[in-house]
């Protein structure tokens, strides 16, 4: 056992200079990817449940394709392809945002699909009997209940998404982990920096999953 660990370098200045910028990006990426992923994922889920083959098939291929490829490869693919398609280079951060929205949409769509399917058929029939159109039925009857049933799972996926943002390391985007790493390198204390990164990730994710558990209990009682 040779513990040569010195925390004295780890000051508030270091935190604001290196880590905070990365933390903001990680959180921003999480929020944007969650919002975009749920929106796009709902569309994908509706396509898969539409019963029309020309809508179902592309959505199924997209979702299963995304889910069978490692996220790191998806990040690399978008970093390579997006500049080719739009014809000019984009930054790692922008590329990461596009990637995460597209990638998480596949996962959110599976959650949404399960949520929509969990709504009893009678609800849909009741809506139809009231003379609602498909859009009204979805917007007013099915989706509000589906969202509520799925809220804990959606939030858990968001926590996983927050952890996954660390993988933008592959294209060198400046996220929280990168912030810790650069701070560690600048001060010659990489070991402490990685440990601090682990602690900060743990505190954030543990607090979030604890709140999700509380919320789950609350919702379960009301229902």
């Amino acid at each position, binding site marked *: 056992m040779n513990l040569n660990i010195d925390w004295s370098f780890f000051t508030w200045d270091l935190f604001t200079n290196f880590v905070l910028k990365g933390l903001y990006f990680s959180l921003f990426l999480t929020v944007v990817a969650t919002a975009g992923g749920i929106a796009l994922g709902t569309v994908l889920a509706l396509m898969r449940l539409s019963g029309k083959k020309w809508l179902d098939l592309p959505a199924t291929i997209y979702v299963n394709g995304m889910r069978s490829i490692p996220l790191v490869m998806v990040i*690399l693919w978008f970093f*390579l392809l997006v500049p080719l398609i739009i014809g000019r280079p984009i930054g790692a951060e922008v590329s990461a945002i596009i990637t995460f929205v597209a990638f998480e949409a596949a996962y959110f769509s599976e959650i949404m699909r399960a949520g929509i399917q969990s709504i009893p058929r009678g609800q849909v029939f009741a809506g139809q009997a009231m003379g609602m159109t498909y859009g009204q039925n979805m917007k007013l009857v099915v989706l509000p209940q589906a969202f509520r049933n799925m809220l804990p799972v959606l939030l858990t996926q968001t926590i996983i998404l927050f952890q*996954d943002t660390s993988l933008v390391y592959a294209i060198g985007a400046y996220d929280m982990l990168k912030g810790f790493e650069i701070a560690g390198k600048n001060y010659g204390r990489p070991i402490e920096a990685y440990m601090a990164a*682990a602690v900060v990730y743990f505190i954030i994710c543990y607090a979030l999953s604890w709140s999700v558990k509380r919320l789950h209990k609350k919702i379960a009682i009301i229902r």
Partner: protein
Amino acid sequence: MSWDWQVFCQDTITQEVGASCFGQGGDITYLDWMLSAWGWTVSVSLLSLIVALVVGSVIGTLRTLPDSPWIVRLGNAWVEFFRNIPLLVHIFLWYHVIPSIFPAMKSLPGFVLVVFALGFFTSARIAEQLRSGILALPRGQRYAGMAMGFTTFQYYRYVLLPMAFRIIIPPLTSETMNIFKNSSVAFAVSVAELTMFAMQAQEETSRGIEVYLAVTGLYVISALAINRIMAFVEKRSRVPGMIAAGGGGH
């Protein structure tokens, strides 16, 4: 856009296309490199899976023991530790931090450290699945074991675990596929697996699309293979009448 699949027949050093797409006399083509990278991906994944299954089974079982709150708490702490820190950070902890705390581990290759990181990371998920598998069994099974005079070890070994493991085969399948996908994170500590190959070959040859397509294809093939193998295991191990038939490998 034009395809150039010749890139895989290029020599990795001279960048010349050889007569055969497999290097001869010690030369290495990109195809050789990619196949060996696939080998690394498969070895990292399978070894991690073994670590994860062993550790996950132990922790998952401990978390369901009756009348031992501290062991249960320890198991819960293990699971929370691994579930709330990203895999990449775990890999950095194993690769950078642990060898500097235990100098004896400095001689270990990065490959071994990644296997431990990925294995322990996944063990927490398997522990969680096994716990819910055991809790899903009717309580009477445990009591029946006790009434037969089995010790705690015996009724876990002969009554609870055989059923629990069958129940969790579907989530275990997706976890095995996750291990293959997660092994890509090993690129960060320079293990020569597929993602590392993809990044380096893309840089050296500038034929990114061909390289990425081939690598992505290998990942998909690996995932399909696992899915089929696990579906076979599920079919073979099914107890008639106990577990609802159907529901594929997912």
